[in-house]
């Protein structure tokens, strides 16, 4: 069911949530986290849809913060909060509250979000677009254990990447990194099989792809080799080559979901490497809510002290 509230406050929204739950007869149990999505009107629909799909794996309360920009100077002085409360079948497997902030409320969105967080449960903030320069220092980001940004949604990904390196705080993560998990697990599995030292490496991708850059930095950190960045026509990452004394280990995905794995001295074989939907990426992000140290290693492109050295 849906409840619309105009010019409202957080406590009225909390009342509406209780009322909605009463009406459909389900108590607020089983929700494992609060997901805060900070977005604009344009991207809200897709983001909510992805979050609702992800909520099938992680039932959650989703708070969508949409900052509205009034068109006239008169409206701009008018601070207001509108809310749309969805519970039951309208909200995936959890509850969704869409918050539209006008005027000065937009600068104090955290004051609206704070009373609406689930007790005791972890908080995740996701910026599908327009992530702040320093997510951990952002008022909303500061409420969260986990801050999800997306370098695919910025104008200059590699500049954003440098900013992320500088502002990294434990709990930061980026969907450009999440997208790499299937690649990374296949590379690790290939190396399990080959069991040989790597002497050179190359990552092939479309130009300015942040995932490719992260992958290259991760390989540099783990393998202690210089990784060549090769620009291809894409889409996204198209191949990774690891040089060994006996020949090359190659995972090649020229197009589509089918990739080819080649190991030295063995015939090539096909691999399923699909480009995943945003909801799957979010679901993966929500599986572990502690700091992703390996992301930090990949961002910096160098190992930390705990990492044993490899030759």
């Amino acid at each position, binding site marked *: 069911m849906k409840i619309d509230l105009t010019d409202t406050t957080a406590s009225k929204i909390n009342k509406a949530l209780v009322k909605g739950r009463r009406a459909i007869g389900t108590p607020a149990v089983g929700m494992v986290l609060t997901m805060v999505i900070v977005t604009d009107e344009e991207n809200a629909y897709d983001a909510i849809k992805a979050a609702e799909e992800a909520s099938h794996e992680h039932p959650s309360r989703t708070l969508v913060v949409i900052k509205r920009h009034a068109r006239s100077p008169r409206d701009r002085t008018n601070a207001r909060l509108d809310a749309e409360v969805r519970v039951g079948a309208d909200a995936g497997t959890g509850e969704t509250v869409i918050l539209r902030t006008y005027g000065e409320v937009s600068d104090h969105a955290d004051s609206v979000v704070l009373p609406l967080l689930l007790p005791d449960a972890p908080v995740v903030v996701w910026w599908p677009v327009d992530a702040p320069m320093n997510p951990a220092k952002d008022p909303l980001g500061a409420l969260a254990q986990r801050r999800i940004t997306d370098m695919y949604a910025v104008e200059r990904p590699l500049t954003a990447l440098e900013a992320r390196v500088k502002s990294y705080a434990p709990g930061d993560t980026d969907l450009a990194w999440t997208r790499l998990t299937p690649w990374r697990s296949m590379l690790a599995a290939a190396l399990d*099989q080959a069991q040989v030292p790597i002497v050179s490496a190359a990552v092939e991708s479309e130009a300015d792809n942040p995932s490719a850059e992260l992958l290259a930095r991760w390989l540099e950190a783990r393998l202690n080799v210089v990784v060549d960045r090769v620009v291809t026509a894409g889409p996204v990452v198209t191949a990774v080559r690891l040089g060994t004394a006996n020949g090359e280990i190659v995972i090649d995905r020229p197009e589509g979901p089918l990739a080819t794995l080649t190991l030295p001295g063995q015939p090539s074989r096909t691999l399923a*490497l699909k480009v995943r939907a945003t909801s799957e990426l979010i679901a993966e992000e929500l599986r572990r809510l502690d700091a992703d140290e390996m992301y930090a290693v990949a961002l910096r492109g160098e190992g930390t002290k705990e990492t044993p050295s490899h030759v």
Partner: protein
Amino acid sequence: MSSSSLGAAWENPLRDARDRRLPRIAGPSGLVIFGVTGDLSRKKLMPAVYDLANRGLLPPGFSLVGFARRDWEDQDFAQVVHDAVREHSRTPFREEVWQQLAEGMRFVPGDFDDDTAFKQLRNAVEELDASRGTGGNFAFYLSVPPKFFPKVVEQLKKHGLAKGRQGSWRRAVIEKPFGHDLASAQDLNAVVHDVFEPDQVFRIDHYLGKETVQNILALRFANTMFEPIWNRSYVDHVQITMAEDIGIGGRAGYYDGIGAARDVIQNHLLQLMALTAMEEPASFDADALLTEKLKVLRAVKLPEELGKHTVRGQYASAWQGGEKVRGYLEEDGIDPASTTDTYAAVKLNVDNRRWAGVPFYLRTGKRLGRRVTEIAVVFQRAPHSPFDSTATEELGANAIVIRVQPDEGITVRFGSKVPGTSMEIRDVTMDFAYGESFTESSPEAYERLILDVLLGDANLFPRHQEVEESWKILDPIEEYWARHGKPAQYASGSWGPEEADEMLARDGRSWRRP
């Protein structure tokens, strides 16, 4: 464990304990299924293999070899797997995953005593090592009746399939029944262990692959609020129930002469009991778990008078859930004078410091009220109630119920004040449902178990010592039943024979309605 099979010196620089996104992918390996045309293989094993591949948990080059008495080519086999996957897989069908999997499918036609077929199997295995890089690592899944086990393992040995070359592994996977009494179980173990080392043999008890069963350990040992009361000072008794609403169906040949106790109590229920009652293991590796489970099973004492504390029954013709069903003795292929039990209830005591005096009631049956498996830990009543008797008239004992299936989860039962002016207390429940907090993510038991076999992780597989200990518990009961009386009749769709209710009434208790 997965890395140890890869040789100790090699350490993969791309893996790191802190990198928890990377899933546990099985190392290079293949799976050979004997009896690949059977129901279990089509409905559970093939879909589980596909689901694992779809989740990206199988190694590149993973290969599946089918062995059965069919005149099939590799493509025909792939088609059968394809159909089984389309119909039964848990995750959505994806063409690219299927292609990756289909390339590694081989079929070997033949009988179990056919030497040429096993030579062909050996060739297939060697060919896969060369063409798919399976590295000599193969698991042999014996999805065949136990009478064929000796033949198959002997053939595997004869054709040099049971031992891999240096640095590779061979494993055998077998399904229940693991014998029908202690002697036959020991014979079977001797046959299998003659060819495979004990730690190469994986016995499937699919209950142990269920999330809820693994969660028993998490509930008990990852929390502090349950363990302090998990003992004789607070627990009154424990009930472990596995009920099925179906009859024996077409399994008359297998079931008659075996019965519910051998089919279910010996393996599933005693395993659930061991997990519920055991002490905290030193670690969560297979050996530590085995040690603790064995300690519990060895501490089990049967009641003095078996006649009073065990009950067996047979379902009788009746209306069940709106349809008229036949009784056990009227089923096709069943001797009308059969004394096979389709219902069994036993009382067991665990003689150790934690559980002395706390009875464990185990029951199982076919054609019962509904399909349900649960473990109910029932607590003692409060020693003193400040409320007068009218206030707490309806109050039952507190209980923690672990619902294994269906509707997996945990229920806590306790008394609560009814809103209103007078002090009236009624039982309420507090529920944790898997479907609520972790929807859609629970893998099938077989997915987990097959992956564990490929990884060499033996935590969730009962060892031969456990199987033998379990038979030591059940054998005296079966012997007593063989000599005394015959099974009580109970109406299909009920919760078992009256004798079972009397058995608990004698102790001043009653069965929960699950």
